[in-house]
């Protein structure tokens, strides 16, 4: 039997989260004794690299329609591969691709789906998967009852493990119906480091007083090799672009390090960041609620602390 992992791509590149998903599949395979196949749809560079994170076999599926993001067709290609390879466990990343494709596949295969896994499934007896619920305020252990099991993994939740396997590549051209979604155009973000993939995020809130003061935040981010984020009022007031808004109603992130400057730490903000491994809070108000969720805190004025931090980071030459 095999575990099938959907290795998603963006801009013709294997996505970082795809390596995580493959590594998750490989770690699960160590428990179940299955082999690991990764499926890539459409053009992508460097697909052999999936072996490094544990794929035994790479199924490369091509069809002209895969130049656009077509969840229904991707689900169909995965379905066909799952049948052909006798895969009873299918793994996705719980990112924008997985969120669109996995539920379609689950309904078509009548399979139980657990989205947003934060640990390997427990396979002693039942098959249960731990996931964050209530916006990170709790976890649930979800038991899958169906023979086919689909799991999507929260990005950045687990350590990627290297296997350095040499995977065989199988090229498959699939016949697919014409999609009813007609893609007109794409606007890819120019930012080199998308927020949800960043290991370090520097974020700022209303405490910064105005958009003209973000220079030091960007500088700090640059020194740390970090992405930038903001609280909701900041994006609502158009001080910062909307895709930077983190929290309950914005994006949820779980970087290794989240630095919050001039953000009070409202529960709705925390909902999007409380899964970060380490949280640093810089705030003038010693009673700001954010300190309760932080690992390191500095009570101080951002306009004094941040420039000093930039200088110190520069001296350590961290971005290299």
């Amino acid at each position, binding site marked *: 039997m095999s575990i099938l992992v959907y290795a998603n791509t963006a801009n013709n590149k294997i996505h970082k989260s795809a390596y995580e998903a493959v590594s998750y599949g490989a770690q699960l395979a160590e428990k179940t004794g299955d082999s690991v196949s990764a499926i890539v749809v459409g053009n992508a560079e460097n697909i052999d690299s999936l072996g490094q994170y544990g794929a035994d076999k790479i199924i490369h599926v091509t069809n002209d329609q895969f130049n656009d993001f077509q969840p229904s067709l991707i689900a169909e290609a995965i379905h066909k591969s799952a049948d052909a390879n006798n895969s009873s466990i299918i793994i996705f990343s719980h990112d924008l691709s997985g969120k669109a494709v996995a*539920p379609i596949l689950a309904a078509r295969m009548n*399979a139980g789906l657990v989205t947003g896994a934060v640990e390997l499934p427990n396979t002693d007896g039942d098959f249960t998967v731990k996931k964050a619920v209530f*916006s990170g305020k*709790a976890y649930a252990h979800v038991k899958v009852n169906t023979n086919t099991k689909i799991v999507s993994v929260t990005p950045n939740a687990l350590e990627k493990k290297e296997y350095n396997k040499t995977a065989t590549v199988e090229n498959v051209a699939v016949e697919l119906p014409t999609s009813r*979604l007609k893609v007109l155009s*794409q606007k890819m973000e120019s930012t080199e480091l998308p927020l949800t993939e960043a290991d370090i995020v520097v974020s700022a809130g209303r405490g910064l007083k105005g958009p003209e003061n973000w220079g030091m935040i960007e500088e700090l981010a640059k020194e*740390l090799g970090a992405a930038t984020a903001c609280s909701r009022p900041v994006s609502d007031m158009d001080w910062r672009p909307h895709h930077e808004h983190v929290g309950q109603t914005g994006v949820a992130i779980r970087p290794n390090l989240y630095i919050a400057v001039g953000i009070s730490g409202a529960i709705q903000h925390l909902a999007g960041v409380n899964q970060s491994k380490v949280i640093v809070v810089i705030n003038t108000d010693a009673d700001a609620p954010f300190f309760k969720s932080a690992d390191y805190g500095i009570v*101080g004025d951002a306009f004094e602390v941040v420039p000093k931090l930039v200088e110190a980071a520069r001296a350590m030459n961290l971005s290299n």
Partner: protein
Amino acid sequence: MKILVCISKAPDTTSKIAFTDNNTAFDTNGVQFIINPYDEWYALVRGLELKEANGGSVTVINVGGAENDPTIRKSLAIGADDAVRINTNPTDALNAAKQIAEYAKENGFDMILCGKETIDYNGSQIGGMLAALLDQPFVSNASKLDMAGNTATIERDIQGGKEILEVETPFVLSAAKGMSEARIPNMRGIMAARSKPLKVVEPTAFDNATEIASYELPAAKGACKMLSADNPAELLDLLRNEAKII
């Protein structure tokens, strides 16, 4: 245009999260429930705007017990024409999606709008499942939706950017930020909601593909280490040598 909006009930974001029955059930004691924000702010309000511009109707549907009726009434107060409640407590997304799909098949809708996810179980499942069960196109994480006749122009978030696409009705869409602005129900809406129809439909029996075995609260965070504002280099030092993350 016949629009179906799927609404779920979620604990208010400020709710204290606790569990009972040996950590197998969510403790609803003292919890204030709201309509899941994505369903209310984006799916429902955009549905209402489209109805106001083009005519038609907006029906809201919920899979849940009678305790959900006040939440459903709130969506009627915001402006939905009528409501359907499928009378079963969903424990599994696929089961809930099948219940909604049964109703949608019988009643035929031009579009089905969902939220991108619920803020309690954070599933991101039901929209895509519904589309598959109804064999309709699925547009996930949409941030804009405009209609011209039967053609929808939609902007959606994809990995690494945004995409603009066209699709003919019928389709299923999951709504994210950007679709519309929240509406606050006014007194007239609240009064009118009392007499709008809320139909209760008995469920179809399906197996549960998944079930929640138990819950767990995260380990309490250790105390925050407070550092001096005068020497931020100390912070970087700790991040490197203690936390080992830079």
